[in-house]
Every structure is written in structure tokens, then in C-alpha cells.
């Protein structure tokens, strides 16, 4: 995109600057729009599974429901509890939202459509997603209220626990790909399965890794069955209990942006990203972003499906699953996969 702005007569620095700003807007604005629409999809899927109709009043088929909700929230009064720690109370939703957007900088939407094609893309995503816990912890503490505080404590423990196993699962993928660059990880999946299938998940050693990654991403985004941080039957609404108006909306948008990020990571790391599912020439005429968004949408559907059908875990079950099941298995797989790759001469 820098070349395009250079052709308009700008020098390189300005062209780069304008191209970066344009790239950020090209990612952030469609992302916000898709968050609004994906909330609608989420509610429709739950409704279909629960044999209800779901939102169907605002606009055709209820398509404008999220925008109506957004407008309602926007017009509400911002309430700050008098006992709250004001600065941190207001900072927390902004931090959650910023961090949720920042991770999208390295996501490759097709072979060339990536804002920052950096060498350590995967580490960057891991680093940024480890920051998202602060929004929850800060809001829980600053609210100066019991339920948000419980929620913040749970969130801190839960996200640290599952980040460990996510880290090991990512190591397995990196071992196969030989790089942290997300675009190169996608490229290395081309024809991976017997020269036919473009996906890591086809490998018998990586399939269990993907299953664990999917479950861990549910836990990392605090979705059902791991939504202990906002368990409405125990903690009212968890860390966002005291929030209203736009600060609440920022949590909401940040949460769904994180969920979409985890869905797109599932697609990029295990299901071939912007590559078509099968390595067959005519399929490459479909633009890469279409394949990527189809895969992302499929994983989002699975997220909704799980939310509508699975009951919530108990806290001790959550911790047991993270530390006693996922951690040893993923650590074992790192060893097994390294050994397998050495034995088969993958490293050359």
C-alpha cells in the first residue's frame, strides 16, 4: 500500500505513514462492524439451539439489533461508583478495548494483506493477549465491590493457567512451521497433508493439539463453559457489574474482538488460514480472505454452539483441567513432536 501512496506523489516516509494509518483503519473499522454482526449471529445461534426466535424486531430479520443496542448504550449515563478508584476504573475498559484491537496488527488476511508482517508475529499475539487480563483485574479491583473483585481474582488465575498450555501448543505448531511469522506458518501448510490438504490439523500429532487449543481458547476468552469470571448466577455480571454506558460497551466490544481473534488463530495455525482447504488449482481463484473468513466464521459458530449446549465448569474442575490435564499433555506433545520431527529429518 506504501507504493500506492508513493505513486500519488508522496515521499517514502509520508507514504509509509499514510499507508499504516489507512491499514489500521482498514482493519479496525471492518472489525468493529463484524463484531456488531457477530453478536447478532451469536444470539441467533443460541436462539436456534434453544428453539427460540432470537432478535427479529429491529431491521429485516433483526439484523440491526446490535446497532440499536450500541445506540442505547451510547445514550446512557456513565455512572462511576463513589467508592471506586476513578482513574483505574475508567482506564480498565479502554485498556481492554485497545489490547483487543492491538493484537490484530499481525493477522494476515491474505498473502499480502497484513499490517505488520513481523518475524515474531505469534509471540506478539501471545504477548498482547497476555495483557488482556489487566483490563479485567483492574476493573475488578477499581470497582471496589465484592463480586467484581471475585471475578478479577478468578480471571487472573484462569488466564495465566491456560496461557501456559496455549504457549506449549503454539510451540508444537512453530516446530512444524520453523518460524514465528504468521504468514510463513500459513504458507508452510500448503499441501501439508499428503500434498492434498492445506491444514496442519490433518496430522495425527497435531489434531489433539488443535482440540486442546480450541478448548484453551474458550478458556482464554472466558466463554462458556469457562465463563466463571462473569458467571451471572454467582457474580451478577462479574468484573463489569459496576460499569454502564460506553465503558460497558468497550468491554463488550473488546470481548468479542478477542473471541474473533481466537477463531482466526484457530484458522491460521491449524486449518490453513487463507489457503483453500484442498491444494487444487481452481480453488486458488477464490480470494484468500474468503477462505479465511469462512473458516473463522465456522469456528465462531462452534463457539456459539458450545455456549448454547455446555453447562459451566466448577472452579476446581477448571483449574484441574488446566494444570493437571492440558499442561502435562501439551508438554509431552512438545517432546514427542520434536522427537518425531528429528526422526523424520524435518529439520534437514
Amino acid at each position: 500500500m506504501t507504493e500506492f501512496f508513493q505513486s500519488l506523489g508522496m515521499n517514502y516516509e509520508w507514504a509509509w505513514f499514510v499507508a499504516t494509518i489507512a491499514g489500521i483503519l482498514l482493519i479496525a473499522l471492518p472489525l468493529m462492524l463484524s463484531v456488531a454482526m457477530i453478536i447478532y449471529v451469536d444470539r441467533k445461534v443460541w436462539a436456534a439451539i434453544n428453539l427460540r426466535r432470537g432478535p427479529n424486531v429491529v431491521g429485516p430479520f433483526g439484523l440491526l439489533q446490535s446497532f440499536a443496542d450500541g445506540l442505547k448504550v451510547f445514550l446512557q449515563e456513565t455512572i462511576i461508583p463513589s467508592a471506586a478508584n476513578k482513574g483505574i476504573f475508567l482506564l480498565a475498559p479502554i485498556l481492554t478495548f485497545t489490547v483487543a484491537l492491538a493484537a490484530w496488527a499481525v493477522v494476515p488476511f491474505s498473502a499480502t494483506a497484513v499490517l505488520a508482517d513481523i518475524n515474531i508475529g505469534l509471540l506478539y499475539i501471545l504477548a498482547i493477549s497476555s495483557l488482556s487480563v489487566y483490563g479485567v483485574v483492574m476493573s475488578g479491583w477499581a470497582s471496589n465491590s465484592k463480586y467484581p473483585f471475585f471475578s478479577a481474582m478468578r480471571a487472573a488465575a484462569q488466564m495465566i493457567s491456560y496461557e501456559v498450555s496455549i504457549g506449549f501448543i503454539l510451540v508444537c505448531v512453530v516446530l512444524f512451521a520453523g518460524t514465528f511469522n504468521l504468514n510463513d506458518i500459513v504458507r508452510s501448510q500448503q499441501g501439508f497433508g499428503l500434498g492434498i490438504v492445506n491444514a496442519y490439523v490433518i496430522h495425527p500429532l497435531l489434531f489433539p493439539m488443535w482440540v486442546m487449543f480450541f478448548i484453551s481458547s474458550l478458556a482464554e476468552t472466558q466463554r462458556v463453559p469457562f465463563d466463571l469470571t462473569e458467571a451471572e448466577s454467582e457474580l451478577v455480571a462479574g468484573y463489569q457489574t459496576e460499569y454502564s454506558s460506553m465503558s460497558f460497551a468497550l468491554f463488550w466490544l473488546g470481548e468479542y474482538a478477542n473471541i474473533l481473534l481466537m477463531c482466526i488463530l484457530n484458522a491460521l495455525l491449524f486449518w490453513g488460514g487463507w489457503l483453500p482447504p484442498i491444494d487444487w488449482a481452481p480453488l486458488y481463484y477464490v480470494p484468500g480472505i474468503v477462505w479465511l473468513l469462512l473458516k473463522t466464521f465456522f469456528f465462531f459458530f462452534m463457539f456459539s454452539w458450545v455456549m448454547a449446549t455446555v453447562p459451566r465448569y466448577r472452579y476446581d474442575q477448571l483449574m484441574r483441567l488446566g494444570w493437571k490435564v492440558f499442561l502435562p499433555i501439551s508438554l509431552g506433545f512438545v517432546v514427542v513432536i520434536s522427537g518425531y520431527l528429528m526422526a523424520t529429518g524435518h529439520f534437514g
Partner: protein
Amino acid sequence: MIQTLAFYLFAALVIASAVMVIMARNPVHSVLWLILAFFNAAGLMVLVGAEFIAALLVIVYVGAVAVLFLFVVMMLDIDFAELRAGFVKNFPLGIIIALILAAELIFGIGAYQAGRIELGVASGATSPILDASNTASIGAVLFSDYLFLFEAAGLVLLIAMIGAIVLTHRKRPGGRGQQNITKQVRRNPNEATVMKQPIVGEGVEL
């Protein structure tokens, strides 16, 4: 130009937030300032081209260590009046530590200007790897030349972890908190429930 600007921005923020760590009255604010300092230090690492170290700094320190730190500090019930009461008593100790730190700083700057110390001659065995990414270069050095030190560091951490578990783990007497997960999972409706057809007016006897 933009590197210089970025350097001064990150450096100024690191120093400012480090000052705020000790100036903040609320310990939770202190920890949050510390996190900002870590984060900006990672920015400085990126500027010198060590993006791998920067990512590790954020993942390990900001993402894990500082969260646990915050966790503990938030749970503490700190009485600020009591903290200030100890000020006069601890004042001499504080002065001594401040003097030691000042002396170290002066020595450090003096030694730096006197030229570097000759601890040994570099063998030149590890020439810089060209055309390799940060990650690959660190891996190449870490798993060849410094393999022993790397493994030893891992062993030290493992021992520390086992030590922490041994020190804090205690077996509670009695059955509370002891669950047999497999038994719970294998329970089925046939052995867990009993179907009764109660007669109206008589109820059930279990």
C-alpha cells in the same frame, strides 16, 4: 529521526513510571506503574533490534510475573497509617541503602569511563549469524555454546518450583477437598438415582 524520538519517548516513560512506582501512595498503583515501566523497557528492546527479547519481556514479566504480583498486592490489607508510622524507625536503614546505591552508581559510571575490564579474550568462535532472525540466532547460541548454562538455569528453576510446592503443600486431615475425579465422571443415573412411585398421602421412604 523517528528512532531517536521513539527512544526518548520510551526512555522518559520508563524513568517516569519507575519514579512513580516508589512515589505512588497506593501499592496497587505502584504495581501498575511497574507494569508500564516493563512495557516501555520492551519498547527499548525493540529499538535495538532485539524483538525476541522484547516479546519475552512482555510475555514473562508483564503477562505472568506482574499479574501474580498484582494478585498478591490486591489481596493485601494494607493500613497506610501503620506504614507511615514505621518511617522514622526505618529512616537510618533507608539512608544506608540509598548511600550504597549511590556509591554503586558512581563506581559504575567511573568504571565505565575508565575503560572495560579484561576478564578474558573473546575466542571469536561465535561470529554473528548474518541473515538469520533474532529467534534463530538466540536459539543457535543457546543450544550450542551455552547449552550447559541453559540447562543448569532450567534445573535451578525446577528446584525452586519443587521447593515452593514442598514448602506450601500440606495434607489436610479428613476427607474434605479430596475428590476422586474418575469416580465422579463414571457415575451414571442407574447407581446415583432411585425411581419411586409415591402413593398420594403417604410419601416416600428412602
